[in-house]
């Protein structure tokens, strides 16, 4: 991939080698590329058993009985457990406790766990599953999200009164959360007709975003090992060890300290590991059998083993004055959360507050609904509610521009937010937001060569359809499109998602060494290098070790919401500062620092305590001797506020981030096939910590957005997934992924450590609408469904 990364502001001088701003190698990089990295599914113990899960074949059914007798008779089977065997709380959940550890009374989606088995061989376990009989009374599933939201006669997915009450979510019927936002004249109930009459152009469209899968390559897996104290040690691939612990322990009826978690090798996450999968089951089986129990889902099982991106049905209306100034917007967004809440309330919070994107619009009415259905549960995925809305508002911007005869970039610049703007919740953007500049940069980047300028235009790999030989140039039309998205970074709405870091400095073999210990999950994003880089920069020590992540240190929060560089990076920085202060104090105690010489004049550089005026005062190794300096610190971001349930007002977000994409595509307009020729990005990240990993995040995020634009959709019919495999759930290959030119801006956010801005999610927002806009540009089609299907391009109803 011939990408080029241009940095526009470089202030990355780092005195210590491999410090902040450099690109040290990842410790797991070579192992992963050579296939030697131990993923959670590779763990093995001499006396372990295999755990397997019996799942509901029905999306909605009443359970009249479960008979495990025959399964237990099978030699080699050590345990068969149902809901009756759950030692503690029978329900768990990320935000609302509404999901059974093992189903009782009812199953609410196809694939829901009903029983678990431990056996000495996976084949024995599988046979045991076949011998469990469940007496189901099949019920009609609630499959339509719109019906679930609005039809009073729609059956309830969860029985009335059975759910935890949250007044602020406007719960009703099958609504997990309803969040309105009202600004301008909508706040006092002015009807839209009044505004419509003042508009020079009005566009009104219904959009759909399909259910996207995170498509991580390492399926759900882990190993639970029973401990002598009656507790359990769990090695698992997850995104947030402590939130797992907080759900597992109550289900096992154990105190938190008896459920110890260690992060196992994670094969990707993207939100899909925020919710529990096999964790409680493996622990129950291990505690029951007294043996280590390993659980590994297969690929088909994985499709029902984790939550997906909420599919969305959206009705957007935008009105603009004739000069292109946006006047009003009304948005209805229905997010299908499936059978259990997962993170639906928070997804609704993002979709509503960021529903109109980074545009100044004086009058806005948003109605965002998260609903229960009997579809597969949906929750966190990279972009988290902002992706769906972004597809809608960016499509609307293009339509308005077309209607008004404006260039799409011009219209966006005209209405662009900037530092000081207010988003629709009333929150002020109190950090740089160089949106207009980013749009100009994206527009002005060099274009990829036209087809007739290619060295060999007959090379099939340059054509839509590729080597499948469907076109030698016939029907191929080029299009260009733009997309920009606004994403919140860190958790929102009053949630204190702090992170904890323990940093220890000591001399080992005469050399100062630092150990960084956090519970943060390395899910592939590269936090493992960032932690070391920060320690090197802050402490002037080259030898830094990163301790495996576990629950022996405080919570790090989730590897989600693009927040770990900010939060765990912030915690490591704080802990390092505390260690540094103690080292300075030690130097003073030893009389190495002159009186009246303030700490401001001191630094740790090259393994030495250095004074700005007096030069080297001591080597750290000598100063520390056999002592270790250890400090643990929590880092909290600034407090945020909930949205009010009536008008959706409140400064709910910690930080805002943005990426702009320009997509260039070649479309075979007769066959409906697309080749993305270029997917170029401009992103402001405040401060680059690791240039190479940053490029990887932007490329990866853009590619995941490309998947949503052109191919990725879990097809659900009557609440049943029709394509639970990578044969039919397609994700982009290298031949689908174009070169990406990336321009990175560094406009520091004064509130964030180093001024950094979370970077992982924004490109996932902007690349989808940019690509779809480019396909529209090439075809003249409306294209209201993401992903765009060949049928949509050639105009065949699906």
């Amino acid at each position: 991939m011939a990408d080029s990364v241009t940095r526009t502001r470089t202030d990355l001088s780092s005195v210590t080698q491999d410090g902040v701003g450099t690109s040290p190698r990842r410790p797991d990089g070579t192992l992963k590329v050579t296939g030697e990295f131990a993923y959670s599914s590779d763990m093995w113990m001499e006396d372990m058993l295999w755990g397997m899960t019996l799942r509901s074949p029905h999306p909605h059914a009443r359970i009249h009985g479960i008979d495990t007798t025959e399964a237990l008779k099978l030699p080699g089977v050590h345990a068969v457990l149902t809901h009756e065997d759950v030692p503690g709380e029978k329900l768990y959940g990320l935000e609302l406790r509404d999901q059974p550890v093992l189903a009782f009374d009812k199953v609410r989606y196809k694939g829901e766990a009903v029983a678990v088995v431990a056996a000495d061989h996976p084949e024995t376990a599988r046979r045991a599953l076949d011998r469990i009989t469940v007496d189901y009374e099949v019920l009609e599933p609630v499959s339509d999200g719109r019906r679930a939201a609005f039809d009073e006669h729609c059956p309830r997915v969860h029985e009335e009164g059975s759910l935890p009450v949250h007044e602020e979510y406007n719960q009703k019927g099958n609504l997990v959360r309803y969040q309105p936002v009202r600004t301008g004249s909508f706040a006092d109930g002015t009807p839209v007709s009044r505004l419509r009459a003042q508009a020079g152009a009005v566009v009104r469209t219904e959009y759909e975003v399909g259910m996207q899968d995170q498509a991580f390559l390492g399926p759900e897996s882990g190993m639970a090992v029973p401990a002598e104290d009656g507790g359990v040690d769990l090695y698992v691939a997850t995104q947030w060890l402590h939130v797992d612990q907080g759900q597992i322990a109550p289900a096992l009826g154990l105190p938190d300290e008896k459920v110890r978690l260690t992060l196992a090798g994670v094969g990707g996450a993207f939100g899909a590991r925020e919710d529990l999968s096999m964790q409680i089951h493996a622990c129950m089986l291990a505690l029951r059998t007294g043996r280590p129990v390993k659980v590994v889902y297969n690929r088909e099982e994985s499709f029902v083993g984790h939550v997906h991106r909420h599919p969305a049905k959206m009705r957007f209306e935008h009105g603009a004055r004739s000069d292109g100034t946006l006047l009003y917007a009304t948005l209805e967004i229905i997010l299908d959360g499936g059978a259990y809440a997962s993170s639906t309330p928070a997804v609704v919070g993002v979709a509503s507050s960021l529903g109109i994107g980074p545009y100044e619009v004086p009058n806005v009415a948003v109605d965002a609904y998260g609903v229960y259905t009997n579809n597969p549960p949906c929750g966190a995925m990279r972009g988290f509610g902002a992706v769906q809305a972004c597809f809608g508002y960016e499509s609307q911007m293009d339509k308005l521009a077309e209607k008004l005869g404006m260039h799409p970039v011009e219209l966006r610049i005209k209405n662009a937010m900037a530092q000081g703007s207010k988003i629709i919740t009333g929150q002020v953007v109190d950090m740089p937001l160089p949106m207009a500049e980013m749009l100009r940069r994206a527009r002005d980047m060099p274009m990829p060569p036209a087809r007739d300028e290619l060295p060999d235009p007959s090379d099939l790999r340059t054509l839509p359809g590729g080597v499948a030989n469907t076109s030698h140039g016939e029907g191929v039309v080029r299009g260009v499109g733009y997309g920009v998205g606004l994403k919140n970074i860190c958790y929102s709405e009053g949630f204190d998602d702090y992170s904890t870091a323990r940093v220890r400095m000591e001399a080992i073999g005469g050399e100062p060494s630092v150990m960084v210990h956090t519970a943060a999950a390395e899910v592939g994003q590269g936090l493992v290098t960032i932690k070391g880089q920060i320690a090197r920069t802050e402490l002037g020590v080259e030898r830094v070790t990163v301790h495996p992540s576990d629950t022996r240190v405080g919570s790090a929060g989730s590897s989600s919401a693009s927040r770990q560089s900010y939060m765990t990076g912030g915690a490591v920085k704080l802990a390092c500062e505390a260690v540094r202060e103690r080292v300075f104090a030690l130097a003073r105690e030893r009389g190495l620092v002159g009186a009246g010489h303030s700490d401001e004049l001191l630094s740790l550089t090259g393994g030495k305590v250095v004074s700005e005026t007096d030069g080297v005062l001591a080597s750290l190794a000598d100063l520390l001797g056999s002592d270790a300096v250890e400090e643990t610190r929590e880092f909290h971001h600034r407090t945020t506020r909930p949205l009010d349930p009536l008008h959706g007002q409140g400064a709910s977000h910690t930080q805002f981030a943005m990426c702009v994409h320009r997509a260039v595509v070649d479309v075979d307009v007769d066959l409906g096939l697309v080749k993305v020729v270029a997917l170029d990005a401009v992103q402001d990240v405040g401060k680059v910590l690791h240039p190479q990993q940053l490029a990887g995040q932007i490329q990866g995020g853009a590619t995941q957005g490309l998947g949503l634009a052109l191919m990725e959709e879990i097809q659900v019919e009557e609440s049943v997934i029709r394509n639970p495999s990578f044969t039919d759930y397609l994700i982009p290959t290298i031949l689908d992924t174009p070169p990406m030119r990336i321009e990175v801006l560094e406009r520091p956010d004064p509130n964030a450590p180093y001024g950094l801005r979370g970077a992982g999610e924004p490109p996932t927002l902007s690349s989808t609408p940019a690509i779809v806009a480019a396909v529209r540009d090439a075809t003249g089609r409306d294209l209201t469904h993401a992903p765009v299907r060949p049928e949509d391009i050639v105009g065949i109803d699906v």
Partner: protein
Amino acid sequence: MEFLSPATWEEALAAKSAHPDAVPIMGGTDVMVELNFDQHRPSALLDLTRVAELAEWGPDGSRVRLGAGVSYTTIIQRLGKHAPALAQAARTVASPQIRNRGTVGGNLGGASPAGDSHPPLLAADAVIELASVHGVRHVAAREFYLGPRRTARRDDELIAAVLLPERAGPQHFCKIGTRNAMVIAVASFCVTLDAATRTAGTGIGSAGPTPLRAVAAEEFLTAEFDWQGAGPLSEAAVRHFGELVASAARPIDDVRGSADYRKHALSVMARRALSWSVTDYRKGEAQCA
């Protein structure tokens, strides 16, 4: 499950005769997927990878004899001249890893309507060589596909080889997938122009319960085409050919695409492949003159 691993063809045939339900396994790129997904649990597997002659190919009179176990990679590298459409089809199969293992014999054994070898074998009028302890049979590809995943191969038979007629004109294969590599066909099409017999051949994939021929389209083209002078076909004729191909398809709506789209795509591919073939044919004629 028994694992039979014959070292010679004779032993393989004897094993198949003794265990008619044994599932042959060559590249394993279908068999292993089915086992993994627990779709069926055969009583025995019959490993053919040790039978050396299955992986061989070479001239057989005027034809080319392609062992059932020749990999797609070899086909791409070595058979581009003799069987261009089959080589093109092989190029569209899966990924390099799968192409190193996967074989035409396996494609025929599974007989999925989406198998990429089938349209070229149909269009080129290839012959399948079947063998058992009772002897060898030759079945035309055009008579081989009987129903959904059902073929003329009997339970005690193995597929020995494919016999490809000498190539006497242009061939083109195209395949629709919703990504640009590593994808099962949504629809595929192959056309051949045979100057020696002055006949046209077609094959359709992924648009019916079996791989199909568009017989009416072949007959139309055979009659319409200027075999002598290679004059261009009228736009109307090309269009009509596309329509005849589409109407020969019997597609369904499924996760990979809708029936209407498949028909539409077939008509487009048929027109394009025909135009490329006519151009090639004219170039070939010019070279002969």
